[in-house]
């Protein structure tokens, strides 16, 4: 009896300090579901993709080759696409008369909400509109994030659709910042925030800072991995290159484009861009090619490590090490 009492007292003290205790969380869902909530988060993320297709979605019994990457995520540019096969015909031919009859009673045609969805299909895509019906995926994305705040993809996908298709830039930025609070080192969220600043806020300085921070985080997390996330690397470096070019900082732009060409799936297109940029450099007098202390960046001189001056790549991926900028303060 005394032993049991002592054991209980000791274990209780240990349990209160245990990191894995659910009682440390104020979130009801965390307490009830524990780590199982991550499974539900994945389910609701896929449910949002099912809504993106107006209900036309493969079940566990169907061929899912064409849906390995959720289409709403692939269209948002949040992840690289790994889909194969025919996305319009995963059902295949009807196997019997019951199967044939049943296809009249559930969605059996491939559509996307941003292209009109089911009514758009019914009207033979006459009126595509702006695809504001894509708002219907938001509740499930919201629920997915509530269940698993560490699922970064949900933040970036939601933010893309909010700002690009619904014009809700403020909500997108707030949502991304919530995601950054939950995932402070996420290069995906930093990259998406940079897109918000560049494409919607038209603030190239902040966009550059965010993308450089994203690149730095990518290097820390992915640089040494053999299966590094090259898709996001190419996205970040290509956006940086485009931004530098737009700002007239040709040397950093060229350096970024060389890296971009090296890892792009379409190196010829990038090579064309490099050639065009070189011609612009030659052609424009005082072209504003960036030197250290570029005045175009923020009105005050700052040093910027060019990629070619950075240390040699580490790790076996052969991917470059890009030094973090000295200034890159995130607001």
């Amino acid at each position: 009896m005394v032993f049991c009492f002592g054991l209980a007292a000791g274990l209780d003290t240990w349990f209160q300090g245990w990191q894995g205790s659910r009682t440390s969380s104020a979130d009801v869902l965390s307490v009830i579901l524990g780590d199982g909530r991550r499974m539900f988060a994945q389910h609701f993320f896929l449910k949002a993709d099912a809504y993106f297709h107006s209900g036309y979605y493969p079940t566990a019994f169907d061929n899912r080759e064409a849906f390995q990457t959720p289409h709403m995520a692939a269209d948002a540019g949040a992840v690289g696409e790994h889909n194969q096969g025919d996305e319009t015909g995963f059902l295949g031919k009807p196997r019997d008369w019951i199967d044939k009859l049943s296809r009249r009673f559930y969605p059996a045609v491939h559509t996307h909400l941003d292209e009109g969805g089911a009514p758009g299909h019914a009207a033979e895509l006459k009126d595509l509109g702006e695809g504001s019906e894509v708002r219907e995926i938001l509740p499930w994305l919201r629920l997915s994030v509530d269940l698993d705040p560490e699922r970064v993809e949900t933040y970036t996908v939601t933010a893309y659709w909010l700002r690009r298709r619904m014009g809700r830039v403020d909500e997108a930025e707030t949502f991304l910042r919530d995601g950054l609070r939950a995932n402070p080192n996420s290069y995906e969220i930093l990259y998406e925030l940079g897109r918000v600043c560049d494409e919607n806020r038209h603030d190239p300085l902040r966009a550059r800072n965010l993308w450089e921070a994203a690149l730095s985080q990518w290097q820390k997390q992915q640089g040494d991995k053999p299966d590094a996330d090259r898709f996001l690397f190419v996205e970040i470096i290509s956006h940086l290159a485009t931004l530098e070019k737009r700002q007239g900082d040709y040397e950093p732009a060229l350096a970024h484009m060389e890296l971009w060409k090296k890892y792009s799936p379409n190196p010829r297109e990038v090579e064309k861009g490099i050639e065009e940029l070189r011609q612009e450099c030659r052609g424009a007098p005082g072209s504003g090619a960036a030197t250290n202390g570029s005045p175009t960046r923020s009105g005050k001189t700052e040093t910027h490590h060019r990629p070619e001056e950075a240390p040699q790549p580490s790790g076996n991926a052969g991917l470059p090490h890009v030094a973090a900028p000295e200034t890159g303060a995130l607001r």
Partner: protein
Amino acid sequence: MNNIRAVAGIVIKELYRRKDFYVLFILTILICLVMASVHIFNDAKIVRYLKEICLLLVWISSLVIAITTTARQIPGERENRTLFPLLAKPLTRTELLLGKFLGCWLACGLALLCFYTFFGLLAASREHHWPVINYLQAGGLHWLMLGVVIAATLLGSLVFAAPSSNATIAFVVVTGILLLGRHLNKVAVSLPEPRRSILYSLYYAIPHLELFDVRDLIIHDWPPIAWGVCGVVTLYAMAYATFFLIAACLVFRRRALN
């Protein structure tokens, strides 16, 4: 026919005198209104998640009402000792059974009318349009499905010992068919013989209740189903309901009442 109508009328009165329907209806309304009050990214036009939740609750509630109401009809008459007086009247066993079926089915129809009216109002409050034909088709097909379920449950009430076991088995079977019925043929194809044949036999034998579940078409605003196709599934439902009722009549005729 008058006898059948009289028995049916009693069953309908029993529905609105009991609390089952009101509890489920109010619960559905409350849950849907709470879900509707959630603000998602300051967009008041998001509606499909609400339609899905509402329709799911409608389907669960209607199945609960249909199965629990039907499962206790004949056993209830036996336990209350009203079965003998009923059959002492010029009322045959077949008429009693058909009256019970008609009463349960009409009662479920009235319940569905209330549920779908609420659903229509809820959806219209956000969508600002009312696809009446779609909702009529959905409600009608749902009602037909419940007819098959009620007939099967009535047969079960004569076969199984207690209403509780009958209701449990009915819920499990109906849920299984709704979730897996469509996919049995896909699973069968990948199996070796003789399991493939067994599964295919099961696939063709079961009433495919999932045919009547058109929630995805309603939620995602697909156009209405062709009326000819609706006619075909109506005949399909009537065939299965008739089969179950004939089986129930045959069992009831041979069953000792005590």
